[in-house]
């Protein structure tokens, strides 16, 4: 149970949230035409005759788009509907060339599934929670209107027209802005793991329609509003906070919440009415007669399943159980596709550089990847060229450290030079003198010297004053100018002091 509550004049209110996330399918071509989908091209340069709805043009489904939606469905453990159908959603708008959007109302490609959001003290999510997903359907995106090109006219860019979208519809299972934020982040992570969507919210590859209502805890659902096209996690959370508080104010001042479509104003962080229920379109949905029902063959479904990668939840469990990582490290490393990708490459390089199995070096590599390396990179700021930080170079730093050739501090110093200059770690360690002395002869000589000059302390130590051991270590390190391998120093001192 979430304990997020709005404190109203009449008591506490609970927020009920459902999200419809539109995710652009990663595909070279549009859903029903061969036109390209690259972002940022010249207006109207990626438009086929089909996208422009020229007379007599017909849609033909793109196999790859369907495949990605099916794989996404599998990743949220949803029912895959081997028989689905496309419907037309009819309305007039200048960015909608056909006068209808091809979507799936009656028979979506993907049925019910679910997604796990994790407990997070920082954001107030008390415990792990499963959020239900109602369906995923596939549909065409519309074009874009440009209002800033002409004083009295609007221009239309059809590059996006016909691009494949998945609409992922959650159940009204979320109860706080934090849960909604965690849901969107987790969904984005899964989409990126699967490779079905790049998750780039700034470029509009992912956007959410946010359904919010409020109720007194335990009562029936209230009337909801839908805020359209919200394009960041932070904005999703802002919309919920604003809408929930606005609705509570309306209800507590004796009003009623209108079921309506609203728009989010990024500048003010508020929402406003876009169209009321009375103005709602009658979309006149009906099966698209240009398309036959979409029937998935067993082989196709099997290939979709076989091509799924290890997903975040499974990977996190494996990191904990097989690699022995802490729950925190496991979660941090598996949250994003890039993070685990870098980690696994480095883990494998380090294990082979050291000559141990991955489990034996996993914690060392995880600490390096999550804390040491990012710390160094951050401290260097613009001076760091992260492309210099190859897995091989980082692995060789970790290997030197593992063998005791360099200290932790030296590892950071070497990494700094790697980042700035792109040199090889071994060479840096040699030329810059960034190596620990493990040569027992040199250390022994230094120790003998110190023990000879501190006979009194040696006696006291032997008489039981154990604390003096640290003094001898410090003196030895000082004599070695900090470059002695502490483990060797310890061992030699213990031997000599008896």
């Amino acid at each position, binding site marked *: 149970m979430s304990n997020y509550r709005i404190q109203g004049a009449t008591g506490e209110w609970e927020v009920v949230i459902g999200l419809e996330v539109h995710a652009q399918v990663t595909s070279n071509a549009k859903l029903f035409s061969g036109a390209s989908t690259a972002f940022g091209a010249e207006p109207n340069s990626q438009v086929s005759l089909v996208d422009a709805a020229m007379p007599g043009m017909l849609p033909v489904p793109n196999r790859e788009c369907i495949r990605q939606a099916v794989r996404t469905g599998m990743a949220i453990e949803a029912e895959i509907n081997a028989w689905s159908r496309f419907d037309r959603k009819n309305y*007039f708008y200048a960015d909608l060339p056909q006068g209808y959007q091809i979507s799936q109302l009656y028979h979506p490609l993907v049925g019910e599934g679910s997604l796990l959001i994790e407990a997070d003290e920082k954001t107030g999510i008390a415990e792990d929670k499963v959020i239900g997903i109602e369906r995923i359907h596939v549909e065409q995106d519309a074009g874009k209107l440009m209002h800033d090109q002409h004083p009295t006219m609007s221009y239309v860019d059809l590059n996006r027209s016909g691009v494949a979208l998945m609409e992922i519809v959650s159940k009204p299972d979320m109860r706080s802005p934090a849960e909604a934020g965690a849901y969107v982040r987790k969904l984005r992570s899964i989409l990126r793991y699967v490779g079905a969507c790049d998750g780039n919210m700034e470029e509009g590859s992912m956007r959410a329609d946010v359904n919010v209502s409020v109720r007194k805890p335990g009562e029936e659902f209230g009337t909801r509003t839908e805020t359209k096209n919200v394009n960041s996690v932070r904005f999703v959370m802002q919309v919920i906070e604003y809408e929930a508080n606005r609705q509570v104010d309306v209800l507590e001042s004796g009003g009623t919440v209108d079921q309506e479509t609203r728009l989010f104003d990024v500048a003010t962080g508020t929402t406003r009415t876009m169209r009321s229920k009375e103005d709602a379109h*009658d979309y006149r949905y009906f099966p698209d007669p240009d398309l036959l029902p979409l029937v998935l063959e067993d082989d196709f479904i099997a290939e979709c399943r076989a091509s799924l990668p290890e997903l975040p939840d499974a990977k996190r469990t494996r990191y904990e159980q097989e690699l022995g990582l802490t729950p925190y490290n496991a979660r941090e490393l598996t949250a994003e596709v890039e993070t685990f990708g870098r980690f696994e490459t480095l883990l494998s390089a380090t294990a082979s550089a050291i000559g141990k199995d991955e489990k034996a070096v996993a914690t060392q590599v995880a600490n390096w990847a999550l804390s040491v390396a990012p710390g160094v990179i951050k401290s260097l700021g613009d001076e760091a060229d992260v492309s210099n930080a190859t897995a091989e170079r980082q692995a060789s730093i970790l290997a030197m450290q593992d063998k005791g050739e360099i200290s932790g501090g030296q590892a950071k110093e070497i990494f700094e030079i790697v980042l700035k200059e792109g040199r090889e770690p071994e060479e840096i360690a040699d030329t810059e003198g960034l190596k620990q002395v493990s040569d027992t002869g040199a250390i022994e000589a230094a120790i003998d010297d110190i023990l000879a000059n501190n006979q009194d302390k040696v006696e006291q130590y032997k008489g039981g004053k154990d604390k003096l051991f640290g003094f001898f270590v410090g003196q030895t390190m000082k004599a070695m100018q900090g470059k002695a391998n502490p483990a060797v120093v310890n061992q030699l001192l213990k031997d000599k002091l008896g």
Partner: protein
Amino acid sequence: MTDLTKLGVKAIRDGVRSGDFTAREVAESFNAAVAEAAELNAFIVTTPDHALAAADAVDAKRAKGEDTGSMGGVPIGMKDLFATRGVQPPAPSRILEGFTPEYESTVSQNLWDAGAGMLGKLNLDQFAMGSSNETSYFGNVASPWKLEGSNQPMSPGGSSGGSSSAVAARIAPAATGTDTGGSIRQPAAFTGICGIKPTYGRCSRWGVVAFASSLDQAGPMARSVEDCAIMLGAMAGFDPKDATSLQMDVPDWEGALNADLKGKKVGIPKEYRMDGTDEAILASWEQGKEWLRDAGAEIVDISLPHSKYALPAYYIVAPAEASSNLARYDGVRYGLRDLPEGAGLQDMYAATRAAGFGDEVKRRILMGTYVLSAGFYDAYYTQAQKIRTLVSQDYEKAWGQCDLILAPTTPTASFPLGSMNKDPLTMYLNDVFAVPASLAGLPAMSVPAGLNPDGLPLGLQLVGKAFDEQTVLDAGLAIQQRAGFDHAPEKWW
């Protein structure tokens, strides 16, 4: 030299192939005939250069000893619903004013690839909506036929009325048609020619202006069954650009033509004996049975019990699809734009569509919008789809008893232009016999059966099993051989 315009597809192709005449001579003859026939208003635009260029290419091939193609040297009329690159906005309406397609429909390309040339774009009812050719933005088409002793212009049928008029008038040896609910068969019957609507999906719809996507199907119109078989073979074929295209090989219909119907059973649907059906039509139906029996077929009585619901269901499904298909004509990207002073987007839509569409098109958009509306959808569209399924099931059951079905094509012969367009419902009844096969997606053909007492042609309709155009064509050939229909309208244009 023979008058080349008297020749059909097969005679022209074979004559060019064997060197009896050149393709250029054929194209020039037809170009001249077309130029003389402006009074029929069958063509919206003529393209003599296209016909000549195609003819020259065929003659050049022949000179090199190459194959001249299954339609080599045959100049045809192209119904102006097919996009042809650089020529004329398709679908005669004002809304496409100024638009010229930069693409070629699959069917027209297939025909050019087979050696055909284009005489011009043929008139039709606006967006193929009509049964009399009185709804075109470019004016009515007149049939070459006249009532005996009358000078009234007669309807060539619709919507492929430019096609039927041109082929019957011998200004084109053949023409393309499209059939949504009888638009090939009814005009063929009205003008004494043959026309076949193949199984839904045989001919690609890519590049054909859509009326009702689940029903629209292209087909040939010509003066003989053989010519239809040849031309259908050139038009048909799987097209990856049309998701409803049949992924099947195109049979050699021409080569397999066989008028011997021994072993075939022909079903006679009792529900087609409707009140108001013309006596002459019923008589020709009886005659048709005799001819098919004579060709070796067995005649059996069958029942298609849901036939009477087919027309109402059609007038829900077709307008519903049309209302959506025609939404793209909005004045935003191409064609007519009517932007009144100070108008916004909604005003532009209203003004453009009010000015651009004719009354019949508007009527069907309104009907279609209505039946898809919230609260009416289940009562109309869903019910109509159920009827469509029942109609298909009627045929499935009938195929247990017979191999094809014989019926009249239309309930009446042609009528004078202007005599039927006061009441849309009366006009819609013209397609009562044609619509069931459209709803079921079955191959159906009209062949001439004779003249009625007024001297107007009558047609007989053959409906076959899905993908079995061959049996339909074979039975058509059997009727053709026995009917001996060699009437031609007297030239008055």
